[in-house]
């Protein structure tokens, strides 16, 4: 199994204080597949995303990327490993530094890994085109754009390191139908060309059926606990 190409949460348990949120949950996202994840509010979907995105250390169990176990979280994970997983969250406002222009927002992960400025500019322009941010929007800061436009910038930021795995936690819930279809189309194109593994979390059953290759119920994964 060590050579398998997948992002794996293996028997992961997480609690906040005495409250157990995830209890021995296993979830596998293969390269090139789109996995839909559903479950009632508060069942731990977002916590599972935080664990998979290497943002939260599980109490038990571990995360592995293509068979390589990851024993650290956040910046303690080597750059080459942590940039292979990216996440897109529900609220772009909460996920964006309000002091940065959209173009700097997208460039931030590249600058954090000391990418040469010329390469940064080229990659950012390419991604801004891909997600459909028009030239007049790029120099604006988050307060001067709509949620839909800001989420497009966040999507560009998530793709900036060409991740092999993309985790979308209710990423289109607050978007209008057209922007939702656009964001989904960009992610689906990226998934095909990069053969990326994608996790989609949404309460919208119609969207889940349309978008994902297979659907996992988190309540069922976690056993009897609702």
């Amino acid at each position, binding site marked *: 199994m060590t050579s398998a190409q997948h992002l794996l949460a293996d028997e992961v348990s997480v609690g906040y204080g005495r409250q157990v949120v995830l209890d021995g949950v296993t979830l596998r996202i293969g390269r090139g597949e789109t996995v839909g994840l559903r479950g009632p*509010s508060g069942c731990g979907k977002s916590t599972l995303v935080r664990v998979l995105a290497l943002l939260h250390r599980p109490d038990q169990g571990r995360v592995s990327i293509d068979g390589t176990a990851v024993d650290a979280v956040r910046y303690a994970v080597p750059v080459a490993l942590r940039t292979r997983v990216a996440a897109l969250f529900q609220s772009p406002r909460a996920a964006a530094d309000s002091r940065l222009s959209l173009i700097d927002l997208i460039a931030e992960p590249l600058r954090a890994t000391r990418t040469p400025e010329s390469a940064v500019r080229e990659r950012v322009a390419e991604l801004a085109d891909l997600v459909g941010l028009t030239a007049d929007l790029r120099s604006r800061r988050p307060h001067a754009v709509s*949620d*839909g436009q800001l989420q497009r910038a966040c999507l560009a930021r998530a793709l900036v390191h060409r991740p092999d795995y993309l985790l979308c936690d209710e990423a289109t819930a607050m978007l*209008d139908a057209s922007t939702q279809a656009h964001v989904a189309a960009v992610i689906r194109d990226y998934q095909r060309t990069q053969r990326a593994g994608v996790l989609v979390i949404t309460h919208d059953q*119609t969207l889940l059926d349309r978008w994902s290759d297979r659907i996992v119920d988190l309540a069922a994964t976690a056993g009897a606990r609702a």
Partner: protein
Amino acid sequence: MTTTESVSASVPSRTVVTRPLLAVDGLGVEFRLRDARVRAVSELSLTVRAGELLAVVGESGCGKSVLAHALLGLLPGNATTTGHAVLHHPGADPVDLVTCGQRQLARRVRGRRVGLVPQSPATALNPVRTGRRLLAETLRAHGRDRADADQLAVDVGLDPADLDRYPHELSGGMAQRLVTALALAPDPSLLIADEPTTGLDRPLVDHTLDLLRRRCENGAAVVLITHDLAAARRVADTVAVMYASRIVEHRDTDQLFTAPAHPYASALLDALPDRAFRPVPGDPPMLTALPPGCAFAPRCPRRTDTCADRPLSTPLTGGGTVACHHPIPTGATT
């Protein structure tokens, strides 16, 4: 939907009905910025009857939230509002919400006659008061028993025990239900709900929508401002599609969803995941630089030279209105 409307069922146009609760006529809102003017609402006219649930849908930034705030006089100081929005109230003189002034709005209109469920509950709640105190305060101000608080909480799907929490102790969904309870407490005859279901999961979305629907059965009217087309389809009597500050199509819900007449409405429906799942091509225009003609023309597959002139809102044979030079023929016309 209510008994009062049955007599007018044969009248083809919605604008000629027995009892409009709210009649908006030529409403315009413009914001002055340092170096630009933002036209957020242009020449907007519509009527809402008692017992009607009107959904206003459109892409983000089309001006639908500004419409809600204009009706309540809650716009910032750099906004200029023109036109009329007359609110009729049984047993009281009609009030023009645009011209009557802040004093009148604060004393007689807001809360009691027009309620608002605001878009972001996090910024609408007083952070140093518990939900129960906020609710008791509202109930007392409107002459109701504070003991009604528990029942109001249950109505919106909130556990009465959670009323004793402070706003920062509530999840986004719980805060959303609390602001809904606060808006419902004075029992307003017109409720404006600005994205009341964001942050709620599906069962709670359905619960909230059913709650709004029930208000209409009791004779109140609801204006539901939403980006969620599925929600609009589920509860609305009529749907107004807004694009670049204007209403481009306003029709019965079923007619709109089965045979949209405006090319934009059609393209927006095609973006739904159970339809083509295809985004509307191109980008919406900037509200600072709206074209003189049809604002959708640059993205429209049906455009011709005529579209350089602004299309007027015209009645459709099957009822409703559309503002387009080349509407898609609907089943009703052929």
